[in-house]
């Protein structure tokens, strides 16, 4: 088989890149994934769409992605509902430091056209009545943030890309990428050998390992982040409630169930995605403290998925100077789903040598060559 471009990974980033390239007229695009549709990090994510970030890059990526999501149903021509619910994110502060930081974040967000605002605890309770005011010092709210169904959006991009001629191979692991004279020549999988000189690394939790195949050291690592879901009930909560100091995000999805997650500071690096009783205990304690009535809901399931963390918790969307033809979309640090429309657009522009919609200097892998890279994103659970 021959291909103009091989994409490794058919999660949300891979399918979005494939779709954007195909839409720009690129033929013979092949996508490999070693799992089934949405079997990796995308299908395990918290399904949140947020524009309230602490760094300029993340704010712009998120805002432009929301603009796409608002028209995605028609643009991708998807027959099922992608379940885009824009009822906001309520970012809860519980300390003086967070009050100050979040107010600064809102100024940055507003300067970039994101309609976030600072709220008093009482105003926050007006939006989420079951919020425990004893622990809230202030909050910020952006009404155009929200929820989106990761399975459906991935499926929508996948179907749209397929209609444009992209070939997808699931349960097909890339074993080797052959490089000769600093040029990619071939991709070898379980069942295929593909002649190509362009490879996109959109391998999510396995991005570092795909980089290692061609001798490019990508400064990312993977870490298990756990989530649980409750039984569905009638709608009682519009926005996602999130707190960095309390280490929780929790939303009621359109289906009616509550999805919630938190990170474990002692989680070892690696590819384990097991569920733990420790998470269940800590998650239950946290959610009952911040949203007490949720304690009456039964937990139905829990699972884990991989964050692929970069040193500054912002994505790497770039080419690689040391190996022309090798492209990166990785290190999303838990937010690859919500940035995917921009990932797809920017990387397709980079690959085709077009002028990029945004300045991508600060998304380039080379920013980590200096240890003093500028912004670190603190607004991460």
């Amino acid at each position, binding site marked *: 088989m021959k291909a103009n471009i091989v994409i490794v990974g058919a999660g949300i980033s891979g399918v979005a890149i494939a779709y954007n390239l195909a839409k720009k007229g690129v033929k013979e695009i092949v996508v490999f994934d070693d799992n*089934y*549709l*949405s*079997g990796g990090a995308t*299908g395990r994510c918290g399904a949140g769409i947020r524009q309230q970030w602490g760094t300029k890059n993340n704010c712009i990526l998120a805002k432009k992605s929301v603009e796409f999501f608002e028209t995605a149903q028609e643009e991708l021509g998807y027959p*099922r509902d992608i379940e885009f619910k824009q009822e906001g994110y309520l970012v809860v502060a519980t300390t003086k430091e967070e009050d100050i930081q979040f107010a600064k974040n809102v100024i940055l967000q507003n300067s970039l056209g994101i309609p976030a605002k600072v709220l008093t605890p009482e105003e926050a309770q007006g939006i989420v009545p079951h919020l425990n005011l004893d622990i809230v010092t202030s909050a910020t709210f952006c009404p155009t943030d929200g929820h989106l169904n990761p*399975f*459906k959006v991935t*499926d929508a991009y996948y179907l749209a890309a397929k209609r444009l001629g992209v070939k997808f191979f699931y349960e097909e692991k890339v074993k080797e990428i052959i490089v000769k004279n600093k040029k990619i020549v071939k991709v070898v999988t379980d069942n295929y050998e593909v002649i190509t000189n362009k490879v996109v690394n959109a391998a999510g939790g396995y991005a570092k390992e795909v980089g290692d195949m061609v001798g490019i050291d990508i400064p990312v690592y993977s870490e298990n982040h756990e989530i649980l*879901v*409750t*039984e569905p009930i009638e709608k009682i909560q519009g926005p996602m409630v999130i707190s960095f100091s309390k280490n929780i995000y929790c939303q009621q999805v359109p*289906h009616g169930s509550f999805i919630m997650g938190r990170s474990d500071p002692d989680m070892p690096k690696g590819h384990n995605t097991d*569920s733990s009783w420790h998470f*269940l*205990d800590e*998650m*239950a*304690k946290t*959610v*009952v403290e911040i949203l007490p009535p*949720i*304690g*009456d*809901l*039964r*937990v*139905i*399931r*829990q*699972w884990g998925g991989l964050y692929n963390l970069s040193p500054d918790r912002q994505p790497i969307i770039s080419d690689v100077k040391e190996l022309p033809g090798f492209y990166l979309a990785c290190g999303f640090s838990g937010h690859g789903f919500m940035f995917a429309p921009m990932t797809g657009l920017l990387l397709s522009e980079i690959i085709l040598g077009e002028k990029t919609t945004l300045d991508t200097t600060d998304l380039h892998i080379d920013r980590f060559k200096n240890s003093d890279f500028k912004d670190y994103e603190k607004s991460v659970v």
Partner: protein
Amino acid sequence: MNKKDVIICRCEDVTLEDLHNLLEEGYTSFEEIKRILRVGMGPCQGNTCGQLVQRELAKFTNTPINEIPTHKVRPLITGVKLKAIVEATKNES
């Protein structure tokens, strides 16, 4: 009986017609179907739909039923209230 009236998944109200439509579209593994129709994601965790979906997949793909992979079983075995979990953590220490 009309396919519209045959319930495959009681938790998520999925009918045999929904399932057959998705098979026709080309989704032929339990995990893929689960992600679109939510079969196996409800309170019973696939105890009802699991074998029914497996049987339909076997028929559609003309594969022996014992070769159709089942879906991933996840904790918890049964629904437990979050506040009950909190209470239990207090008794542990």
